[in-house]
C-alpha cells in the first residue's frame, strides 16, 4: 500500500477514494461519510489487496458509496445490489464482495434478496447504513422507521412495526451480525475487519444520523444531537439475543457483535455436494482460480 | 406426411411415447418428425397427449390437424381424441382400459392388453413400451430397430432391458394380430367391391 508521502501530506483515505468525485453529495452532519471512513480504515488495517475488493451499492444516499471508493465498484438499481454481488462473487470467487447500502435498499425493496443471500450463506459482506428513513427521496417512512417517528409519508407518525435487522439477518442464516452506531467508529472498523477476515454472509448495521430529514422532521436537532442520543442510549451487549434488540423511537440502542459463527458458504456446499454426487466428473469451482 | 397422436392419462409415459418415436424417426429412420405435447396443469392423472408430425421433408406446420393414427391408453383420452381421428385412420387402444364405442367410418382398430402385458413382465410402468412395440408392428411407420436405438437416454439405464422386452412383447403381439388378420382377410378379399 502507498505510504504517506512525507513531503505532501494528504488524508490517508484519499488512497481509497476517487478524489475527483469528492466532495460527496451527503448533507452536513450525515454519518455515511463516517461509516465510509471506518470501512476504509478496516481495509487498510486488514492489509487486503484492494484489487480483490468489489464494492456494490443500490440506490439511495448510501448507494452513492460505490461511486466514491477507488475499487471495482458497481452502482446498481434500487435493492438489487445483493443479487448483483452474488453474481460477482460466483463469477469471481477470489473477490471480497461488499454491499454498502441503506436500510431501504437492504430491508425494503431488496429484503427478499437480503434474506435469500443470507440463507445461502453467500460469501458477501453487507454494510447497512440505517438512518431510519428513505432519505434521498425526501424522508419517507421505511421498514426501519421506529413506531411513532414522523416521516414525510407518515405525517401523523409511523404506526407500523419496524424491522429488527440483526434478528432478520440471524434468522435468515447470516454467520456474522453486528450493530453499531456511527459514533462507534473504532467498533465499526473492527467489525468490518472481522467480517473481512471471515468467509460467509456477514451483516453489519450502522445506525447513522440523517439530519436533514429524519432529525428535522422529528425535531431531534442536528447531527451532534443524534450522536449524543447514540452516546446516551447505546448499550454494548456482545452476543445479545437478536430477538431482543429492536429499536423503539429514541429508545435504547443495543449494539455489539451478536453473531459470529462459521459454516460452509454457498460455494463450499456446492463443491462439496456436487463433488460427492458427481465424483470425477466434477471439478471444484472457484478453487485454485478455477 | 403422417400425423400421430399418443394419448392417455398423465403418468403412463405418453409424452415418452412421442419422444421415443420422434427420436427414432429423426435420428435413425431418416425422417423429419416434430413432437409436441399438450397437458393440463396437473402433473398426474389428467388426459394428456403427445403428437407427432412425420414427413420426408421438413415439417412446417408442427401440430396435427386430422391424425391418421391415434393411440389411446385411457377411456378419457379415447373419448376426447377419437372424434378427431381421420375417417380412414388407425386406432390403437389398450384393450383393458378403453371401452370402444361403435366404430366410425373406415377406421381400423387394433387393441392390445398393454398394461396387462406389462404387469406380466413385472412392471406396469412399461405398458407404454408394449404399446410402442405394438404400434410399430401394426403401422410400420417406424422401424423396430430405430425404436430400440432411441431408447437409451429416454428410459432409465437400469430398466433398458425390461423396456426392450416390453417393446418386443408388443411388437410380436402386433405381428401375430397382423398374421391373423391376413389369414381371415384373404378369403373375403374376393368379395370386396
Amino acid at each position, binding site marked *: 500500500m502507498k505510504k504517506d508521502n512525507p513531503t505532501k501530506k494528504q488524508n490517508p483515505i484519499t488512497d481509497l477514494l476517487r478524489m475527483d468525485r469528492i466532495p460527496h453529495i451527503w448533507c452536513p452532519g450525515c454519518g455515511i461519510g*463516517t461509516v465510509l471512513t471506518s470501512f476504509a480504515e478496516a481495509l487498510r488495517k486488514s492489509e487486503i489487496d484492494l484489487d480483490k475488493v468489489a464494492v456494490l451499492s443500490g440506490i439511495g444516499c448510501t448507494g452513492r458509496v460505490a461511486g466514491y471508493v477507488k475499487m471495482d465498484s458497481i452502482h446498481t438499481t434500487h435493492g438489487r445490489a445483493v443479487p448483483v454481488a452474488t453474481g460477482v462473487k460466483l463469477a469471481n470467487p477470489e473477490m471480497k464482495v461488499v454491499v454498502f447500502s441503506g436500510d431501504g435498499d437492504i430491508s425494503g425493496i431488496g429484503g427478499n434478496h437480503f434474506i435469500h443471500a443470507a440463507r445461502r450463506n453467500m460469501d458477501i459482506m453487507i454494510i447497512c447504513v440505517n438512518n431510519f428513513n428513505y432519505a434521498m427521496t425526501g424522508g419517507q417512512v421505511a421498514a426501519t422507521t421506529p413506531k411513532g417517528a414522523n416521516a414525510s409519508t407518515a405525517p401523523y407518525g409511523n404506526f407500523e412495526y419496524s424491522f429488527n435487522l440483526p434478528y432478520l439477518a440471524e434468522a435468515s442464516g447470516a454467520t456474522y451480525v453486528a450493530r453499531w452506531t456511527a459514533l462507534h467508529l473504532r467498533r465499526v472498523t473492527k467489525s468490518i475487519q472481522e467480517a473481512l477476515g471471515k468467509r460467509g454472509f456477514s451483516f453489519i448495521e450502522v445506525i447513522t444520523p440523517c439530519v436533514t430529514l429524519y432529525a428535522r422532521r422529528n425535531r431531534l436537532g442536528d447531527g451532534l444531537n443524534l450522536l449524543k442520543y447514540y452516546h446516551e442510549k447505546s448499550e454494548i451487549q456482545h452476543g445479545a439475543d437478536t430477538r431482543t434488540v429492536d429499536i423503539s423511537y429514541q429508545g435504547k440502542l443495543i449494539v455489539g457483535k451478536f453473531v459470529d459463527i462459521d459454516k460452509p458458504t454457498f460455494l463450499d456446499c456446492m463443491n462439496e455436494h456436487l463433488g460427492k454426487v458427481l465424483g470425477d466428473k466434477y471439478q471444484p469451482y472457484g478453487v485454485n482460480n478455477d | 406426411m403422417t400425423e400421430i397422436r399418443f394419448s392417455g392419462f398423465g403418468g403412463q409415459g405418453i409424452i415418452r411415447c412421442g419422444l421415443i418415436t420422434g427420436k427414432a424417426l429423426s435420428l435413425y429412420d431418416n425422417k423429419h418428425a416434430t413432437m409436441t405435447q399438450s397437458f393440463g396443469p396437473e402433473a398426474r392423472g389428467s388426459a394428456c397427449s403427445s403428437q407427432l408430425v412425420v414427413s420426408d421433408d421438413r415439417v412446417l406446420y408442427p401440430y396435427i390437424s386430422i391424425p391418421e393414427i391415434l393411440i389411446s391408453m385411457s377411456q378419457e383420452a379415447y373419448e376426447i381424441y377419437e372424434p378427431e381421428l381421420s375417417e380412414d385412420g388407425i386406432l390403437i387402444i389398450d384393450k383393458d382400459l378403453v371401452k370402444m364405442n361403435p366404430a366410425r367410418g373406415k377406421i381400423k382398430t387394433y387393441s392390445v392388453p398393454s398394461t396387462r402385458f406389462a404387469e406380466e413382465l413385472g412392471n406396469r410402468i412399461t405398458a407404454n413400451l408394449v404399446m410402442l412395440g405394438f404400434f410399430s408392428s401394426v403401422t410400420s411407420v417406424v422401424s423396430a430397430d430405430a425404436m430400440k436405438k432411441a431408447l437409451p437416454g429416454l428410459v432409465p439405464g437400469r430398466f433398458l432391458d425390461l423396456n426392450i422386452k416390453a417393446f418386443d412383447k408388443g411388437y410380436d403381439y402386433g405381428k401375430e394380430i397382423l398374421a391373423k388378420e391376413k389369414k381371415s382377410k384373404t378369403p373375403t378379399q374376393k368379395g370386396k367391391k
Partner: protein
Amino acid sequence: MVHFGNLKPKKGKIHIEKDMCKGCAFCVEYCPKDVLELSEEFNVKGYHPPVVIKEDDCLYCQLCETICPEFAIFVTLKEEEEEGEKGESRP
C-alpha cells in the same frame, strides 16, 4: 501494535482541508482533548470549519479524522515529521 519500552506520549499534527468541511462539528465535540474549535471564518461553502486551538494537547488519537464525514481532517505523527523518520505512521 504495542511497543513496550517506548511510552512517550505521541503528538499529532492536525491537517484541515477547510473547504471540504460542512461544519457538522463532530470533530470539535468528540476530541477528547478539546484541541479543536469551530472558527469564525466561513469556507467557500459558507460553513465554519474547525481550527486547532491547542495543538500541543493533541495525542494523535485520530478520532477527528475518523469521525469526519467529509474526509476533511487528518492527523500525522509529529515526531516523525520533526525527526524525518520513516516510522510507522499509522497505529
